[in-house]
């Protein structure tokens, strides 16, 4: 009963959040300088041409009127048509979303694996030089933003030691048998590991650039909670039962220490998705973020709106998922 109430409340707050995002985006991009019509017409267009084109896109109406037209369309699943690409926004956005999702999830997995390994190693070897080394590395990882890591990775693994691809999502000459836009997932399902390898070779560096700062945050926080947990009585009791230090950390401390980290990972994952915008640009990766930058440059209003709304849906969705996982992992939250 309580769970259902919470869920309903969450859905309502989510709807309000999305409405707020829609309103802000819609108005802001119409108030800031720059206008899509000016981008479309050649220099020397007459005032009449401009007025005609403006009317075609409905930009001659007042902003609240425009919002109403767009809003009713969205409720019916119609996000309008991209001004520059002349295609339905929904189609464009959903076509690019899988590329960004695959990149973000790969980055998240890498961050969890790297950060988790660092935290576990640091806890096992606490108060040694190894822990000190891990702390220093994490400090460095944290103090440099993801796009600078992207440049460093391009320089090192793309130019100096060119072992990974640094541009695009997949080698263009390859024949792709895919029916969906989830290339990596589909290549794995079709057992076309040659394609998976090519995709991963393209994704690895941008994913790593996104993962490095998050890995450092996960590593620091998880190690902190693990070290606190290691002093607790049930951990000591497990030691007297003959468990090795590594086993004590893994099976006694970790399940409890992981909870605060989990909440943080949820919040940070949304930042990571935000980070894809610039990282995708850097690596010419054909995802949503890259499309967003083009849309902003071209003042493609309907496309910007569509992308921002989609990002907002992803953010709220991730947060909801984190809350549900938290309840599943923490038995004390389940009853009551």
């Amino acid at each position: 009963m309580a769970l259902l109430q919470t869920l309903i409340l969450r859905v309502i707050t989510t709807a309000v959040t999305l409405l707020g995002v829609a309103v802000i985006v819609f108005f802001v991009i119409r108030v800031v300088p720059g206008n899509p019509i000016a981008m479309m017409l050649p220099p020397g267009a007459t005032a009449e041409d401009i007025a005609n084109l403006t009317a075609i896109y409905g930009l001659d109406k007042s902003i609240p009127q425009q919002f109403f037209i767009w809003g009713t369309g969205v409720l019916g699943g119609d996000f309008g048509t991209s001004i520059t690409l002349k295609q339905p926004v929904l189609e464009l956005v959903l076509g690019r979303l899988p590329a960004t999702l695959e990149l973000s999830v790969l980055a998240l997995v890498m961050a969890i694996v790297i950060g988790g390994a660092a935290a576990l190693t640091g806890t096992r070897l606490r108060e040694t030089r190894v822990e000190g080394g891990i702390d220093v590395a994490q400090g460095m990882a944290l103090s440099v933003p993801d796009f600078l890591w992207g440049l460093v990775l391009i320089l090192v693994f793309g130019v100096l030691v060119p072992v990974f691809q640094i541009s695009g999502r997949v080698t263009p000459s390859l024949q792709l048998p895919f029916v969906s836009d989830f290339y990596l997932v589909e290549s794995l399902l079709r057992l076309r590991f040659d394609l998976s390898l090519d995709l991963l070779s393209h994704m690895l560096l941008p994913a790593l650039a996104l993962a490095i700062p998050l890995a450092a945050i996960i590593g620091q926080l998880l190690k902190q909670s693990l070290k606190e947990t290691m002093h607790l009585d049930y951990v000591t009791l497990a030691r007297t039962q003959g468990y090795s230090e590594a086993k004590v950390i893994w099976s006694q401390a970790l399940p409890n220490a992981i909870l605060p980290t989990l909440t943080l990972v949820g919040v940070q994952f949304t930042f990571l998705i935000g980070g894809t915008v610039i990282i995708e640009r850097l690596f010419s990766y054909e995802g949503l973020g890259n499309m967003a930058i083009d849309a902003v440059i071209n003042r493609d209003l309907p496309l910007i709106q569509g992308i921002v709304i989609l990002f907002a849906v992803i953010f709220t969705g991730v947060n909801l998922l984190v809350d549900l996982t938290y309840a599943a992992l923490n038995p004390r939250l389940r009853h009551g």
Partner: protein
Amino acid sequence: MSFLSVRNLSARVKGGGPLLRDVSLDVAVGEVRGLVGESGAGKSMIGKAVLGILPKAVEITSGQIMLDGVDLLALPPAQRRIKVGATCALIPQDPLTALNPSRRIGVQITDRLVDILGWTRQRAEERALALLGEVQITEPTRVLRQYPHELSGGMRQRILIASAFAAEPKLIVADEPTTALDVTVQKQILKLIAALQVRHGTALLFVTHDLGVVSKVCQKLSVLYAGKVVEDSAVADFFRAPKHPYSAALLAATPKYTDPLAGLQPVPEAVIAAVRAEVAHG
């Protein structure tokens, strides 16, 4: 013969003062030894040293801990851990923090039987069920599936006691097992430990500051002051005639329920000064 024999054990805080000074004590097979003293006298430290769970800041400077004829301090850490895990157990002080909050009661009892002692899962589960019956928990099948936060402090301590006896250890260290409990529950838990100890013939090192508890449960007694054993007696002899002036004063300081108006008798200053001098020079 002694199952546990601590010989001339000294320990200190790294770079600091001594915590244990030349401590020697024996616990025979099936025997119960009480370990009493004020807070900070080092009584818990001895139990921790035996089980190998001393805080990292504490180091053992000299002495031996002979368990079943083997010096634990001479063993490599992995072997020591397995030796202790297979023959000893701990009943911890605070049942509210000694169970893992995210794991069901059942696995917290059975895991070590399976992981460390190599029992089959089924045998371990049957054992857990039988033991919960033995510590008088009603509906043991249900309790095994519950989480610690669903149970009371007394229930949790019963579970920890059951868990301690699960592998038929030769020695159990009970570290003030009733201190954190409600007074009404303390007596039941004490009775339970005593009954199980007799039934299983387990040697018990009973750390407590309560001489009343000692008189009920223990056969032998070590009195500690500032990390030094000042008296080592049979319990019956101790209560009749304590050998050391400090233990005599400690015994006199025990509140008497038969005469509540007598008030508390603190250990006299002179006795404390004398025992301090003795510990420092001895």
